[in-house]
């Protein structure tokens, strides 16, 4: 790829990017969120058209105007957010767009399933072709995604291949949803695929992985290529500096836990006993969780996504009804509230609980509202923001002006629609709102997912500051690094249970990884 430029309204996502992929190599594309990695790969996959630049495959220039073209040239892509239809089977998902038919019209699912079975044997990617995607765990779903790409590349055998055949596999942040164990297995698969002649592009922002699996590394920053190197020639610190453009502190500075000895004498801020919660599909997602959090400590909950963390947080914040168990906040019994599932969020908030929700667009903000309204979203009815039922616009604006400076929310005006802010600033807005009132307990779910390094640092600092002020913090994250660097104690959730809890000082990545996979 040479001189690739892609502009979106207001941003240059790729600025004259040159990128070279050799046959049979695993090439890591490294950069922080928003650096243009995904855009570049979407261009190679034909999803976006570049404003400038050329793409060459095996030395010949090609014009990829749609994924169809890319597929025809042997390019496959596994997207960060899985492109799978949950209510359809593995077979249906894999053949979609390249269907096996009888008479060109009717589906031949049997023959397709056989072909998929053969393929999965060949590459050691076990999967049941008849299973529905929605019943499969994330690790298997990713296998299906990889098979989807391989299916198209092998399918080419029967049809005349395009004269320019590249055999490229692109994976966008494939390890974000995997346990360390599963990641290992994925890396083995990738290595073996590379040995069979496939060229692999591996997008990531995790430095460690790069050294693990890549033959070469290209670093992107702000849409530009910073440099290309190999794992031999560089170090983690060097790469981090290349990624961010300045020295970054890879570990967060953390004060030692105060009053460690006295902890056992103190009352927990949050006391949860045998909590059970069902998910949207009606199955029990949280199966009897008990935990305590004390003032001034951070309890991190690690685990692969979909092991009940979401339901746990929603139950604790009153958004989801619990079916059994009890909860006390600051010694006050809130059990009836989480069981009624009615006006729960407000009653819990009024106890001094702050909630940074895992998906700010679902819960945390209203895109069409200005910053002002978003910053009082859950306290709009309190003084001074309302007198009786009449809102006090002056107080709301003053509040917004103060928080925008205090929390470094970059916006041209407090009247800008929140949906138009960058993800980092939106998240800062949510944090600002939750921290703007006195709190004794902070429940933060995936507080930095998908943000740029600057915002991540800022939010981490804010959370630690709250802890040092004596606030109890429940931190839920699928990012093991985040858990390790912030937590005082770490609990691992697996299939609705808390498998184990450990002091952060004694925790090792390897052991946590095994627990996340359910091995204890």
């Amino acid at each position, binding site marked *: 790829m040479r001189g690739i430029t892609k502009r979106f309204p207001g941003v240059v996502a790729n600025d004259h990017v040159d990128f070279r992929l050799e046959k049979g190599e695993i090439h890591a594309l490294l950069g922080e969120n928003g650096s243009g990695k995904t855009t570049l790969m979407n261009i190679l996959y034909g999803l976006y058209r570049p404003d400038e630049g050329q793409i060459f495959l095996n030395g010949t220039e090609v014009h990829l105007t749609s994924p169809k073209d890319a*597929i025809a040239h042997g390019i496959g892509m596994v997207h960060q957010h899985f*492109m799978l239809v949950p209510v359809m089977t593995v077979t249906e998902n894999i053949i979609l767009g390249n269907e096996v038919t009888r008479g060109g019209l009717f589906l031949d699912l049997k023959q397709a399933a056989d072909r998929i079975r053969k393929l999965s044997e060949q590459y050691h990617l076990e999967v049941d072709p008849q299973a529905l995607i929605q019943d499969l765990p994330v690790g298997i779903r990713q296998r299906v995604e990889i098979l989807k790409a391989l299916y198209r590349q092998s399918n080419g055998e029967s049809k005349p291949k395009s004269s320019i055949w590249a055999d490229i596999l692109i994976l966008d942040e494939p390890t974000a949803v995997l346990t360390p164990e599963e990641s290992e297995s994925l890396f083995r698969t990738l290595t073996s695929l590379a040995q069979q002649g496939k060229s692999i592009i591996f997008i990531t922002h995790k430095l460690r992985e790069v050294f693990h699996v890549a033959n070469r590394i290209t670093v992107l920053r702000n849409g530009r290529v910073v440099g290309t190197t190999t794992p031999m020639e560089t170090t983690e610190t060097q790469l981090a500096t290349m990624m961010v453009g300045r020295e970054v502190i890879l570990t967060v500075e953390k004060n030692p836990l105060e009053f460690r000895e006295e902890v056992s004498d103190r009352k927990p801020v949050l006391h949860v006993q045998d909590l059970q919660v069902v998910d949207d599909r009606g199955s029990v997602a949280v199966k009897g969780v008990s935990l305590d959090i004390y003032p001034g400590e951070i309890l991190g909950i690690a685990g692969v996504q979909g092991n009940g963390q979401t339901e746990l947080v929603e139950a604790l914040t009153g958004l989801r009804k619990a079916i059994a168990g009890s909860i006390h906040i600051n010694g006050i019994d809130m059990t009836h509230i989480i069981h009624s599932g009615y006006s729960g969020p407000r009653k819990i908030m009024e106890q001094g609980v702050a909630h940074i929700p895992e998906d700010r667009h679902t819960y945390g903000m209203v895109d069409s509202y200005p910053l002002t309204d978003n910053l009082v979203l859950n306290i709009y009815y309190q003084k001074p923001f309302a007198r009786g039922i009449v809102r006090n616009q002056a107080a709301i604006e003053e509040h917004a002006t103060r928080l925008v400076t205090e929390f470094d929310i970059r916006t041209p005006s407090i009247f800008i629609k929140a949906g138009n802010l960058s993800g980092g600033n939106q998240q800062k807005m949510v944090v600002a709102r939750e921290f703007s009132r006195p709190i004794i307990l902070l429940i933060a779910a995936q507080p930095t997912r998908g943000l740029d390094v600057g915002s991540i640092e800022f939010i981490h600092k804010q959370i630690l500051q709250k802890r040092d002020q004596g606030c109890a913090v429940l931190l839920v994250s699928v990012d093991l690094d985040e858990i390790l660097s912030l937590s005082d104690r770490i609990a691992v959730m697996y299939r609705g249970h808390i498998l184990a809890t450990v002091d952060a000082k004694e925790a090792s990545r390897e052991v946590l990884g095994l627990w996340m996979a359910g091995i204890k």
Partner: protein
Amino acid sequence: MTSSLRFSTLGTLKLPTQFTFLICGMISIILGILYVPLPFSFRLEKRLGKVFQLLPWRIAPPLIVFIVLIWAGAGRQIDVIGMLAQSLRLATPIGLGALAGILCERSGVINVAIEGMMLTAACTGFVAALYTQSIWLGLIIAVLSGGLTAALHAVLSIRFLVNQIISGMVLNILAIGITGFIRKAFIVDSPLPAPPVFPAWQIPVLSDLPLIGQVFFRNQPMEYALLILVPILHVLIFHTRWGLRTRAVGEHPQAADTLGVSVFKIRYINVIIAGLIAGLGGAWFSLETVGNFDDMMTEGKGFIALAAMIFGKWNPGGAFGGALLFGFADALQIKLQISGVQVPYQFLSMIPYLVTMIVLAGLIGRATPPAAEGVPFVKH
């Protein structure tokens, strides 16, 4: 008191009303108990599998229909065959509308404009039939104008990203205005005689079958169209390449797009075909039933069709069942009006609308619409 159910060729079935109610009540209670989650019924359910789980769902509607028939027939005779044939006839526009809705929504486009499409088709079809004096030309124009209205819906919601419910309502309003205008300008003062409606066709041999023959094989063309389209659409949606792509586009358009499937093409074609089918439904009103065009003659059938679609969980067979249920409600209220039940006709004519609301309220939660429904697809 007894109820007589007359099956024309099978003779008459005389039933003591109260005794029949007793039996039906007992069946209901037994069914109810079986589904109370007692340990033994759990085991029973597992052993008998899915068929058994669906059983009450399958049995309940016919049972209700049967009970209602007995009630309505108390003290008089009810022509069961006639009622069933009438139900099918009245279910036709609802069923065709529901099929149109399924095609649209399976591809991710909400279509609340079925009412408007049917109204437009009923009007233009009749005008064409009137001026050409050919009912077949009228039918063709009706179908095409349904497709044209749908094409407008497609352009508004797919190309211009207009909220699909608003786009649909705009089309409904447009249809009312245009058909009212056309009626005043071309129909009211026309000296031409209205062409006769489509005759019923008796299918040789099959129409002589007892019961089935009289219900299914002595119908007018639109009924046959519905009966044929239901299995065709079922095969199309679940067993063909087109259907797989349609379902994928309706559930997860990005997934389809990343595999080179054109989301826009699939949606455009589905919406337009849906319009053609709705056009058939429109023809039912003016060309097959009334033989004229009246303002707003579709009377909300296009909306009831949506309820039938939801009832059928976006499956053609299920939607057909839903349409039959609403058709039966309509046939029943007509029957009751004719037989002189001591209930004001206004209340009887509310029945189809009430049934729609009840069905809708009882079903939600069981029925999940296609995931991407109503969400416009934007490509960079």
